[in-house]
């Protein structure tokens, strides 16, 4: 089974490489390390968000509020930076992250304590969080000239040829690799998703684990709030609108099963990278950017069809085993 999973991520990586080289044929100079670093940089935020979403999807839930959470946390640090440029940026990062954590925990509490389905709660908080941005900013934008230079620099400083933005993503990916494979919390995310009843018998608090998943997703969304505002140098109500579905799409393309329990860190990262490569390749080969949406939609459908065939086979097998046991 684990070999089969490895194969899936392997093929996704092959597909991404093929895409890069095919683009390079049409537009030589695309497959240079600098260009690729640019694409990785473009998809860093998506990678981080996809990891948070992965944990939530593993526990059989979904977090549709990530983009609104990102925009709200981002707006808060943007406003703080505008009002008090003297506050050091790491403190702002901490503020954005903890605020995101708070928003995620609110979602988690409703789901854990009241048993309201995650899709309902996060559908509600998606609209509420985005509305709150309008309220706290009074409908105003925070424009580029309002930010302090260090606020903007903390995603741009280069270190070993890559910008800090990429390094944040690298650190988070490594942290997730450890979390998901080496800690009991990481393993319990999988356990809850594969079989909640069995997880209860194994002494795992299903509700609490789901709550932690939403906390994690919120925390990363909050951190990405700072990253987004710093990278695109704008704070507004429209920041990352509709991005929650892109994040889910990255997870799905990365082979994370929407029915829970199946998915890897590598899958989430490659899924995000895949969308990044497509978005980076289209302008280079002179395809109108208006094609982007249809192509990523087709990619999602294709990914589900390919992943689904494996899942269906697995399901049949389980049925057969159950019959044999009876």
């Amino acid at each position, binding site marked *: 089974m684990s070999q089969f999973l490895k194969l899936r991520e392997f093929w996704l990586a092959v597909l991404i490489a093929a895409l890069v080289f095919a683009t390079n044929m049409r537009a030589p100079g695309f497959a240079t390390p600098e260009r690729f670093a640019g694409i990785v940089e473009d998809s860093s935020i998506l990678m981080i968000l996809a990891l948070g979403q992965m944990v939530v999807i593993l*526990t*059989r*839930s*979904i977090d549709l509020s990530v983009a609104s959470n990102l925009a709200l946390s981002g707006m808060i640090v943007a406003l703080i930076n505008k009002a008090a440029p003297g506050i050091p940026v790491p403190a702002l990062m901490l503020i954005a992250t903890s605020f995101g954590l708070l928003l995620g925990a609110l979602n988690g509490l*409703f*789901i854990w304590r*009241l*048993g*309201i*389905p*995650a*899709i*309902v*709660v996060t*559908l*509600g*908080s*998606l*609209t*509420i969080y*985005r*509305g*709150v941005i*309008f*309220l706290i900013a009074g*409908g105003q934008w925070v424009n580029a000239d309002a930010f302090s230079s260090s606020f903007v620099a903390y995603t741009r400083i280069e270190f070993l040829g890559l910008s800090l933005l990429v390094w944040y993503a690298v650190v988070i990916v490594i942290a997730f690799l450890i979390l998901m494979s080496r800690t009991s919390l990481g393993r319990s995310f999988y356990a*809850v998703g594969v079989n*909640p*009843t069995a997880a*209860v018998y194994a002494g795992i608090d*299903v*509700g609490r684990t*789901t709550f932690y998943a939403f906390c994690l997703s919120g925390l990363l969304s909050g951190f990405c709030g700072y990253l987004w505002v710093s990278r695109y140098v704008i704070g507004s*109500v429209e920041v990352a609108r*509709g991005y929650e*579905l892109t994040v*889910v*799409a990255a997870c*799905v393309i990365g082979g994370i099963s*929407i*029915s829970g329990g199946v998915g890897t860190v590598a899958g989430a990262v490659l899924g995000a990278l895949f969308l990044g490569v497509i978005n980076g390749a289209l302008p280079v080969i002179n395809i*109108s950017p*208006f*094609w*982007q*949406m*249809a*192509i*990523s*939609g*087709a*990619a*999602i*459908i294709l*990914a*589900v*069809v390919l992943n*689904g*065939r494996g899942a*269906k086979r697995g399901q049949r097998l389980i049925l057969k085993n159950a019959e044999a046991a009876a």
Partner: protein
Amino acid sequence: MSLQSTETRRIPDRLGTPLKSAIFSWPSLLIVVAVVLFVVNSLASPYFLSPWSLSDATFNFTEKVLIALAMALLIIAGEIDLSVASIIALASTMMGLALQYGANTPELVLIGIVTGLVCGAFNGFLVTGLGLPSIVVTIGTMSFFRGISYIVLGDEAFKGYPASFSYFGQGYVFWVFSFEFALFVVCSLIYYVLLHRTNFGRQVFAIGNNDVAARFSGIRVERVKFILFLLTGLMSGIASVLLTSRLDSTRPSIAVGWELEAVTMVVLGGVSILGGAGTIQGVVIAALIMGLVTFGLGLLNVPGIVMSIVIGALLIFVIALPILFRKFRNRRR
């Protein structure tokens, strides 16, 4: 989606009296909310209580509720369709394309509806034919359908629909009753009968409660689900005709975000997002509530984004309150 598998389902020894259960049912609670909102609105703004402004208010929800009706059946059967708003965009784009080739009004309507049906069939095939989870499939087709609109239109717009076409979104059947409102009433009745008074409706409930058991009792689960996706596509096509006619133009960004509003209506209407339970009455009243809230706040010059806070809060708290109430009652025992 939620983790209820460890919870036991209790079956009462005796059912409550019909009157009592009707009074404490979800639709009655919603009616109370709707009446309160109506009274508050008419006190808050002097312009609210006039037949024409009330008639204008109906345009806020008639198109969305048409989708919500079909979506309710789909959610009761345990599936979901997030691509509805994109189907509207695609159907509208196809109508606009046909217009460039000189289509007349009946042809335009036909093209809009057929596009909706084709999109619904595509979703239905992916979900029932290939056995894929509908939430992911329709997130994919959501980008795909609207993506086609963007490919066709880019940042352009189709305009100049024939004058007779504007009847669907702007015409009145009788006095203040618009064509859209009349269609909403007729469709609500049809869906009420379909869900609550036919075999097909019972099959939808059976599938939503337990699709394995439904299969063993001889229900063709795949076929029923396919029909439901077709219906959702059909209603989206009809909504697209209405909306295009009302706006008198097509842009690729038409009806963005409507899928979430339609789902909100359905869930607010008491349909269980886990499937197996819900009523059309509830959905219709929930639509009225959302229409009242947005229109009332609009009269008070509250911006749309703030209204969305109210809608979001309404969604969470209307569902949370009964649960909190039940928890509190159980604790006292």
